């Protein structure tokens, strides 16, 4: 039950080292040409999917609010960034756009959350689905977003550094939120909303906070997407995109950030590999999903995090050491 005194614990420093090594590893592999542009696209997809899925997991997995409208928030960030990059095609424009986009997604999340989060379960799913469709139709009909044709030729400001930095920041923020008293409050809503309220947790407020927080990072992921892939149109952010994210979350384990990251990586890789076999792609993809759900209905990780696993081993080591000495 030890709580450290500062953030600079041995474990956190190790994590920092791991994060930095991954960054430099990819950076050097790229500069030596071992990883080509084709690989970088996959990596970008992985980063964006991790951001989307981890933020959705905060809403669905940790707080237990079934949302089918995450693509809506993503599109807000994507359009904001794209428009900002049109008027200012450089990194500053990118940062301004992604900030505005994420904050806008957060605001929309709060506005939509207040009426819809009274609903429970399937009803909430339908309501969030409807809201994402409204956002899509708005983009489809606005002049500034160029309707169904979408925005093309966006300046590519996002590179490996930005992709990685923002992904790590999103995961870190959500991890810190979940592993705090506020995160516990959210999890208690998932476990038993009535009991949670009776213990003094303002459940409405926390549902909205989780929803808005998730929307914020979905907006940021959308910003990365539009800036990396040049081109966005309303159709990219339809119902199926939300389902894609939900699949990653469910597959990784509702309530496990580690699981979400692993499944985001696996599914992104799978999609890339299967691209060469386009005729059977969806069949193989679906069969794999069915098989995993049959044999691991709780998802790859359930609610377990990698830190729990490390804890377990650390404790075991200590016990072993004690018995020897």
């Amino acid at each position: 039950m030890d709580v450290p005194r500062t953030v600079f614990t041995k474990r956190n420093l190790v994590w920092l080292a791991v994060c930095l090594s991954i960054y430099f590893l990819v950076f050097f592999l790229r500069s030596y040409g071992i990883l080509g542009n084709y690989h970088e696209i996959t990596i970008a997809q992985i980063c964006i999917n991790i951001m989307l899925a981890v933020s959705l997991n905060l809403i669905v997995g940790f707080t237990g609010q079934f949302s089918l409208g995450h693509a809506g928030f993503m599109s807000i960030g994507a359009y904001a960034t794209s428009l900002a990059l049109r008027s200012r095609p450089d990194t500053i424009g990118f940062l301004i756009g992604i900030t505005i986009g994420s904050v806008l997604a957060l605001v929309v999340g709060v506005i939509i959350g207040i009426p819809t989060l009274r609903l429970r379960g399937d009803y909430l799913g339908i309501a969030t689905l409807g809201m994402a469709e409204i956002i899509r139709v708005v983009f489809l009909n606005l002049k500034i977003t160029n309707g169904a044709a979408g925005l093309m030729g966006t300046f590519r400001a996002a590179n490996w550094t930005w992709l990685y930095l923002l992904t790590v920041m999103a995961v870190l923020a959500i991890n810190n939120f979940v592993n705090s008293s506020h995160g516990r409050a959210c999890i208690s809503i998932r476990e038993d909303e009535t009991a949670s309220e009776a213990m003094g947790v303002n459940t409405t407020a926390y549902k909205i906070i989780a929803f808005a927080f998730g929307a914020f990072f979905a907006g940021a992921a959308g910003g990365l997407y539009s800036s990396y892939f040049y081109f966005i149109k309303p159709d990219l952010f339809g119902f199926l995109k939300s389902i894609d994210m939900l699949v990653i979350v469910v597959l990784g384990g509702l309530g496990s950030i580690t699981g979400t990251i692993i499944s985001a990586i696996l599914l992104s890789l799978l999609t890339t590999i299967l691209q060469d076999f386009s005729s059977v792609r969806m069949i193989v993809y679906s069969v794999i999903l069915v098989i995993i759900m049959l044999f691991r209905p709780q998802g790859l990780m359930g609610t377990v995090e990698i830190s729990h696993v490390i804890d377990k081993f650390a404790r075991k080591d200590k016990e072993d050491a004690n018995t020897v000495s």
Partner: protein
Amino acid sequence: MPILSVENLSKSFGGLAAVSHVNMTLESQELVGLIGPNGAGKTTIFNLLTGVYTPTSGTITFAPNGEVYEIQGMRPHQIANLGIARTFQNIRLFKDMTVIDNVLISMHSQLSSSIASSLFRTSKFYNSEREMRKEALEYLSIFNLDKKPKVLAKNLPYGEQRHLEIVRALASKPSLILLDEPAAGMNQSETSHLSATIRRLKNEFGLTILLIEHDMSLVMELCERIYVLDYGMLISQGLPNEIKTDKRVIEAYLGEDAARDIETGGES
């Protein structure tokens, strides 16, 4: 001034009057029982007191430490934060959370640091987290649960789950605690342990307790005063000895015939 006064409280669901015109008062640090046959409306009263239901009519006044609040129509979390805690008839723990996390939830609204300091892991965050854990372990030690803080709540034996629910209610620092059938499903020795603990809650923590219970020996032994509810109405109130011999109470529990039998010594 009584800590809780309920005036003319009614609640109907459609045409069904689950609770009608109930008047109750609880003095500070009193241990009061609320009994009645199944379906009499006892748990509905708890749900009205804690804000789960809004009363159809009537007022509920809660007056902890000199302040006075009219709590009917307030949200459950507001009422909880004013100082009314409860346990549930069918245990409602956060099953997939650890024992200590269950307790930490109740301390959340008083002790937690801000969202910003949790995100940036400031020293304030670590301090409040350490404080909360320390306090939670102290509460858990009341029921000797401090040995297994990291066990998932669903993996505790039944009796300990009941205990954990009480600890969780206690951790929100209430002045009034509502216990909904705490002895349900417990064996003799567990029940006697429980009754000792309920006394401790009152004496050590200075709590006012309202107790719903079907175990009559426990109620008669513990409670200073008893309210009896039948079909949503108060049919009797008084000291345990008065209740035991009250004709209306016996009728409500056993039926009119049985009541007459008892009166006549079972001759008819």
